[in-house]
């Protein structure tokens, strides 16, 4: 690793020369060390998250191995058998349904913000969308539990059961707190992420692409759907992956609206459990080391999944901005 980049060395004033400020001979060295130490500290912090989760879940990892991920039994009371399958299923189902709902809405919002809205409207609408991301998770939970479920989710669930009840995903009795409620709240929570990243992807697309499409006689929508969307496709995928990562780890709001019930049925109308809500509910009540280390292992799984998803998302978004900065693709 080269410790100094070339231009900096060139700018560096002679340490013995006349200086405007009182010179402190070791100032550069000390500030360099401080800055480096802080950076190393941040990197080490991330490494130690993985390390701590790994070592503290050792007992559970040794006891159950990879079966932990595919066993549907969670019995802390009697047999001390732990399998994370129901929670992994609950997390994946709620997050994916949320993504399916939020993706078109987020894209539509991004198109409005980047391609349609007049300049005076962009700032205020963009501001409102960003405020949606700022609302604390626990407030979403309170609102979801007392307002959103009774006046929106429950009637919707009844309607779905009555019209599409023959499908396994909409079967069974209707509960208030349910996977559907969690999915809808998650969709609202990840929508700003999708909208913000997609808006930036749209703005990174060179203007020439738009002008070329319009010059060929495309309508506004044809320009968006046939030129801009294919051009920024990997960026929109990145936005979706990033949002998925957010949804997987979301805790408080989900815990408050999902019902926290072990249930392996495929129905969205049933209450469920996610990895994050399980940790939130049982962590402080975990008695015994095996129980606690099983919960920490679930945290480890969450950590790895979000690590991979974040990496993938950055890669996808980066591909668009790199291409946009270079030549126009023909």
């Amino acid at each position, binding site marked *: 690793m080269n410790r100094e*980049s070339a231009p*900096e060395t060139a700018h*560096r*004033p002679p340490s013995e020369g006349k200086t*405007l400020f009182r010179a*402190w001979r070791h*100032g*550069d060295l*000390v*500030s*360099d060390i401080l800055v*480096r*130490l*802080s*950076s190393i500290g*941040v*990197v080490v*912090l991330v490494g130690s*998250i993985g390390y701590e*989760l790994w070592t503290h879940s050792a007992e559970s990892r040794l006891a159950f191995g990879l079966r932990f991920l595919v066993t549907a039994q969670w019995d802390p009371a009697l047999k001390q058998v732990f399998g994370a399958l129901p929670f992994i299923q609950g997390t994946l189902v709620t997050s994916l349904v949320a993504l399916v709902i939020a993706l078109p*809405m987020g*894209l*539509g*919002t991004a198109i*409005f913000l980047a391609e*349609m809205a007049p300049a005076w409207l962009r700032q205020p*609408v963009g501001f*409102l*969308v*960003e*405020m*949606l991301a*700022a*609302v*604390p*998770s*626990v*407030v979403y*939970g*309170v*609102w979801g539990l*007392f307002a959103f479920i009774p006046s929106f989710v429950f009637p919707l669930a009844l309607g779905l059961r009555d019209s599409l009840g023959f499908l396994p995903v909409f079967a069974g009795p209707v509960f208030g707190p349910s996977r559907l409620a969690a999915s809808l709240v998650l969709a609202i929570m990840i929508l700003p992420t999708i909208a*913000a990243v997609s808006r*930036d992807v749209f703005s990174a697309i060179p203007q020439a692409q738009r002008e070329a499409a319009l010059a060929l006689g495309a309508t506004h*929508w*044809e320009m968006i759907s046939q030129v801009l969307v294919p051009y920024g496709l990997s960026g929109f995928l990145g936005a979706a992956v990033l949002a998925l990562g957010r949804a*997987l*780890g979301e*805790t*408080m709001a989900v815990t*408050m609206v999902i019902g926290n019930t072990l249930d392996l049925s495929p129905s969205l109308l049933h209450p469920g459990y996610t990895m994050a809500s399980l*940790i*939130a509910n049982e*962590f402080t009540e975990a008695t015994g080391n095996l129980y606690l280390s099983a919960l*920490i292992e679930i945290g480890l799984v*969450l950590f790895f999944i*979000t*690590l991979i998803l*974040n*990496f993938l998302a950055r890669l996808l978004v980066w591909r668009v901005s790199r291409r946009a900065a270079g030549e126009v693709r023909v």
Partner: protein
Amino acid sequence: MNRGTLSEELGRARAGQRKTVNALMLGLCVVMTLLAVAPLLWILIYVIHKGGSEITWTFFTNLPTPVGIPGGGIVNALVGSAETVGLGLVVSAPVAVLAAFYAASHPDSGLGLALRFATDVLSGVPSIVMGIFAYTLIVLPMRRFSAFSGGIVLGFIMLPTIIRTTEEMLRLVPNSLREGSLALGAAEWRTSLSVLLPAAANGVLTGVMLAIARAAGEAAPMLFTAFGNPFFSTALNQPIATLPLTIYSYAISPYSDWKAKAWGAALVLIMLVLVLNAAARGLVWWRARRLGGQLR
């Protein structure tokens, strides 16, 4: 000639269809945007409607009361939130600003890339996982839930936000400013301290405000670090109440007067968070206009 008119004919029919599709899809985008913004307004109106009546002077000055006894407040949660967020800020802000200086000046070195990756990961790690980390790191060795561990975990959560905004602002500082300072004979460290840092001060402030807003709303990692406390406490080595924890425990309680308190506390929290976010955005906008750059 004949073929030409035919295709013109077809073209005209198709043009009408294309225009309809265009209007339909663009209209749909407007509807999507309205639907996206609607929940925010619903939440705001509902929380204000439900929580507004709770907001009295005693709500801010009194301790929580048992079920059925009126006049309870959330002063312990307010103090606890201030204490944990403040501790997190003191721990994270200096490190974050220093790291941002490194990230802005060495973006392509090995450590610079590692730092960028680490910052991305940190902002992506679910806060509940952060809570487990702080639990194994601090709560287990101390053998007790504590305000200290809550503050530290909030500090971890604040790090990436402050690093990012500070770094972005540092990159906006015109290079001529830095070169001018160096040309006048100031050392690198003096330039950083007296020229770059003041120029990027708004970025630091923006990052700090966004970080406070995010940390103040975190409940998940506090469940098993700060833990919550129905009594008044400022001790760092004791469990402490925070605003989000109070909202959570009151909201899932079966008592209607506690639920009402949850609404009141939610109103206080959401106002705090929105005002901080709005102020942070205003600062960025103002600064970016002055520096003539573009910021997200």
